[in-house]
């Protein structure tokens, strides 16, 4: 059965985030004033990395259940990590844990135990900065993802298949990325093919489409491309989508169109919730 390999330190898996850092990411989410898309995505990703590290933290340290990569594409294509791990493609999660570029203090509202809310200071490690600059070289980014994952799979042939979460708000400016995306999802371990999530961020206020199983309701060729290249959700991911209040049908894809920030966070959760961690 595919997608059932145990994730352990001897058989780690991999999350690769591919993030659009083009100029249009400086715009706010469609229909929402204020927060820029680049800021929202960087916050969501930093928080996700923080949660992943905490999940792997044990009494004697952080266990390397995962390798993590973040490819940014905009003015340049390459690792988006900052600080000591800048420039590295895949980093064991214990090194991610030990090397945030900095740790900010942020406030969080928590229950005060008497029915009210109080603000509490919490640590917020930063690995990724929001960047919004120039074009959208999606094809080149996906080609880099392919190279990175091929070397991971060569070293870990029986791993739970790597999961790629691609977040973008625009169309590729360096040609059709379809083949490059297919090359990514054609990579496989003995436990199944690489899984690709395409998360499209809203530039308009139109209704988002989340985890469809057909492209019938999609508005254009571009949405069709992102749907076609996205992987089908595994049974475990389908169960998490249901937990989140969706009702995905059989064959639902890891695809979100015109998503808001809440949908980005939810899809990151669906894609990265550990199913079989040992």
């Amino acid at each position, binding site marked *: 059965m595919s997608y059932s390999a145990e994730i352990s330190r001897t*058989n780690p898996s991999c999350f690769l985030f591919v993030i659009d850092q083009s100029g249009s990411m400086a715009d706010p989410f469609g229909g929402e004033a204020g927060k820029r898309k680049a800021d929202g995505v960087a916050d969501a990703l930093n928080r996700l990395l923080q949660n992943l590290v905490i999940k792997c*933290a*044990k*009494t*004697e340290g952080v266990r390397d259940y995962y390798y993590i990569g973040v490819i940014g594409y905009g003015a340049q294509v390459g690792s988006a990590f900052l600080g000591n791990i800048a420039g590295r493609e895949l980093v064991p999660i214990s090194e991610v*844990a030990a090397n945030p570029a900095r740790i900010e203090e942020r406030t969080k509202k928590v229950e005060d135990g008497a029915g009210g809310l109080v603000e509490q200071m919490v640590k917020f*490690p930063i690995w990724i900065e929001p960047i919004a600059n120039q074009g959208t070289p999606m094809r080149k980014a996906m080609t880099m993802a392919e190279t990175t994952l091929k070397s991971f799979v060569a070293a870990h042939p029986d791993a739970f298949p790597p999961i790629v979460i691609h977040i973008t708000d625009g169309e590729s400016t360096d040609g059709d990325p379809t083949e490059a995306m297919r090359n990514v999802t054609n990579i496989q371990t003995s436990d199944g093919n690489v899984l690709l999530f395409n998360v499209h961020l809203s530039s308009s206020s139109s209704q988002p489409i989340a985890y469809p199983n057909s492209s019938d309701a999609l508005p254009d060729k571009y949405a069709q491309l992102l749907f076609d290249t996205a992987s089908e959700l595994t049974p475990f991911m389908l169960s998490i989508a249901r937990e989140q209040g969706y009702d995905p049908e059989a064959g639902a894809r890891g695809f979100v169109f015109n998503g808001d920030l809440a949908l980005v966070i939810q899809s990151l959760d669906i894609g990265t919730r550990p199913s079989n961690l040992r």
Partner: protein
Amino acid sequence: MPKAGNTAAEYEDAFGVSKTSPDSTFRSVVAIADGASESLLSRQWAKLLVKRFVRHWQEPSELDEWLSDTLRAWQHEKRSYLRQRVREHKPIQWYEEPGLEAGAFAALLGLVITRPDASNESSNGCGYTWRAVAVGDCCLFQMRADVCIRSFPVTESRAFTNRPFLLSSNLARNAGIAERFQFAEGDAQRHDRFFLMTDALAAWFLYEIENGAAPWRELSNLFRAKNPAQAVGEWIKARRTAHELRNDDVTLIELEILD
């Protein structure tokens, strides 16, 4: 035995056995605990639970007192751990703080076997009674004349798919915990055997029974092997490889009433 891929130091179960009382009133206490792998300090919490159970457990009516004493003992244990980290120049890292704050979690099973007056043997057996306490999914099985006559607190192998309610070292995470404690009791006769085991092995054990097998024979034979530790280790490895046993820490205690 730790889960495959983990070292012995990463085994997060715990077990404890009391010394037999010196006077004629026989009382023997055993306990096992299974620390949750998602939480920090779960091994230490599991060890503390079995130690406190074996040494201090009295009656179900004194549960609240036992719990609050145990949580107080944990505060002491946690403070020494934090002091040790300072001494070792290994300060608590940002990624450890949420887990330390949330607390450790563990399943606990305790068994008390008594014979009120050892000099006054009753006619229906040898006058032993047992009482068991469980929170979570560690299991007790009682065997008599090659038949499993009692299974506690889980009675079906499929029940192990659910997330069990575990005992937390954090008072705030223990809301309604008293209602989660389960109690059982019964009598014990000469040559009755008791098995205490953590969830992965218990799931296998119940599954085998449901399919008409007698898994206690297999386990007893392992303990009677020339080198029991090696026999158990090899047997567990083979069951894991055959996907009959979930890869998890395994703890097993077998007791037999001899006279």
